[in-house]
């Protein structure tokens, strides 16, 4: 790891008070601007002096990006809303306990008090070769140091690796995809609404970023339709220690129907690919099936088809299977 320094590299700091000003600054500085939400990802990069942006746009003063509101047909969450706020919000807990659970289990209480939903879904890869400043593909080089015969790649991808094997580290991202959320992104006076699943991109499309945000873009809100409100929700995160750690694998599932017949389901695992990995084959298979052991076993086998483990992460294959089984059974204690 690089030495963490006390003094960050010099940059020009902007602290806009509203979205309009923030968009103006971002448009003026384009690719030179770094957007900072809670700072939980940003300060690592800056203190390690791996990223040296010319301009930092601190969104901490933009109050209009905070808050949770009933937006008729769903819930809209401001991108700067903290994870603690989301985890404790009665509206979110009532309609979307899946997201509340995911937010509640991110990192540590201190980090959740400052970290935001927008920051959590936009955070960069946690591959230590990349974070240490090695000139890998993701950093603009021409090699993946995590995918060599001698790499330490226990936390890396088992699906859809394309040159880079880093994974998406977010806990809330799979929950938002399972809930069919959409992301509101502004750039200048334009606004686009992107389905959560399309917000995240893999290295095949752009190897230097984990999402589809371009220079000048600002993620302002995340909208959750009521489609999956009040349905069966399941979230589980497996990590090396029970606090302040990223997921080795997590799973978010929204399942509609009864114990005897599933009518519809969405299931997403993260920590296994560069994007949250939606188990579409499993979702199709589950329709009309009972939530029982036989269904769970078949779905688990289906979930790991195409997995290509690296040298040290084959354990993720049975882990994904176990999480899929438990999500279908809806029981975190269920192990057989």
């Amino acid at each position, binding site marked *: 790891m690089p030495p963490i320094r006390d003094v960050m590299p010099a940059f020009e700091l902007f602290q806009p008070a509203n979205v309009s000003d923030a968009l103006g600054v971002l448009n003026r500085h384009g690719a030179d601007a770094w957007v900072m939400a809670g700072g939980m990802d940003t300060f690592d990069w800056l203190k390690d002096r791996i990223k040296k942006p010319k301009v930092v746009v601190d969104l901490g003063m933009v109050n209009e990006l905070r808050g949770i509101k009933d937006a008729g047909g769903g819930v809209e969450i401001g991108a700067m809303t903290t994870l603690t706020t989301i985890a404790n919000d009665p509206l979110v807990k009532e309609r979307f306990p899946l997201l509340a659970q995911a937010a509640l289990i991110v990192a540590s209480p201190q980090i959740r008090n400052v970290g935001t939903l927008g920051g959590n879904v936009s955070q960069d890869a946690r591959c230590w070769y990349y974070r240490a400043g090695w000139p890998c593909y993701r950093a*603009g080089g*021409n*090699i993946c140091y995590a995918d060599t015969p001698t790499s330490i790649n226990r936390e890396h991808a088992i699906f859809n*690796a394309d040159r880079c094997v880093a994974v998406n580290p977010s806990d809330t991202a799979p929950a938002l995809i399972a809930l069919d959320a959409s992301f509101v992104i502004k750039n200048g006076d334009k606004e686009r609404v992107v389905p959560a699943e399309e917000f995240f*991109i893999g290295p095949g*499309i752009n190897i230097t970023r984990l999402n*589809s945000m371009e220079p000048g873009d600002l993620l302002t809100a995340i909208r959750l339709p009521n489609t999956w409100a009040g349905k069966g929700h399941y979230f589980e995160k497996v990590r090396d220690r029970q606090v302040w750690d990223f997921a080795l694998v997590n799973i978010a599932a929204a399942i509609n129907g009864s114990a005897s017949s599933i009518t519809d389901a969405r299931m997403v695992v993260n920590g296994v690919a560069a994007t949250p990995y939606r188990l579409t084959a499993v979702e199709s298979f589950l329709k009309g099936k009972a939530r029982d052991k036989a269904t769970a076993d078949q779905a688990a086998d289906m979930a790991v088809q195409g997995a290509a483990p690296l040298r040290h992460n084959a354990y993720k294959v049975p882990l994904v299977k176990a999480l899929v089984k438990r999500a279908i059974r809806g029981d975190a204690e269920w192990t057989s």
Partner: protein
Amino acid sequence: MDFLTSARSPWGETVFTHISWSLFWAALVGGLLFLLAHGGYMLFSQHHKRTSEEVDRLERERAGLPAHITRHGFVARAFHWVMAFSMLTLLFTAFLPIVGVRFAWVQWHWMAGLLLTASVLFHIVHATFVLDFWSIWIGPKDIPEFKNEMMRDLGKEVPGSPKPGKYPLGNRLYHLAVLVAGLLVIGSGIVMMWRVRTNLVERNPYLFGDVTWGLTYVMHGLMGVGFVGLVIAHIYFALRPEKLWITKAMLFGTISRREYLEHHDPDRWVA
């Protein structure tokens, strides 16, 4: 402006990693400027064609020739269009992401690269054993032809000047440039297959050291942007009115007796 990008390897060496994408824009703009400059020159210059009297005389002398003469057989044309398809796919998959069109390009790129490699290998065998191998090469014997081509382009009358065999001098020079750039881009591209995930070879990022890998990527990039200019020039010349007879021959295979006698030396290319 940096033309190449470099990085510090884990062992502290400064190594090249890629070309700067500015070079892509330079090749694109350079190719388009050449097109405008050449088009403007041809429009306003005193560029001379051979006189019709000279060609009429040749037709009278060679009246026994068939009305249509095969310039490219079916196999040669098939190779050309397969290569063109793979080359355009390679260029689009390589450079569309640079201009902001995002898609999963790597797999399409290496598959098109393999198609190009296979077509070039086939072409080498076909040209060596079936076609007239030496007809595409240039050498000192072509200097008078080159001189006279230049004179005609500069507006001078050069009656009775030497004519090429099967391939005009421009074709042969272009083939040479494509051959050099093509072999380098294919060679570097093939070893890069060991850096990406395919079902064809087992990944081995340690096949070379960081310096050699860096130079491989730089070479691949340089030849790639070189092909941007080469392809622009090729398509431009293929569409120029005075060259359309060659393009039609690449589509349909034949040229007329008059085109044969006007542009070729029957003693150097026996129809």
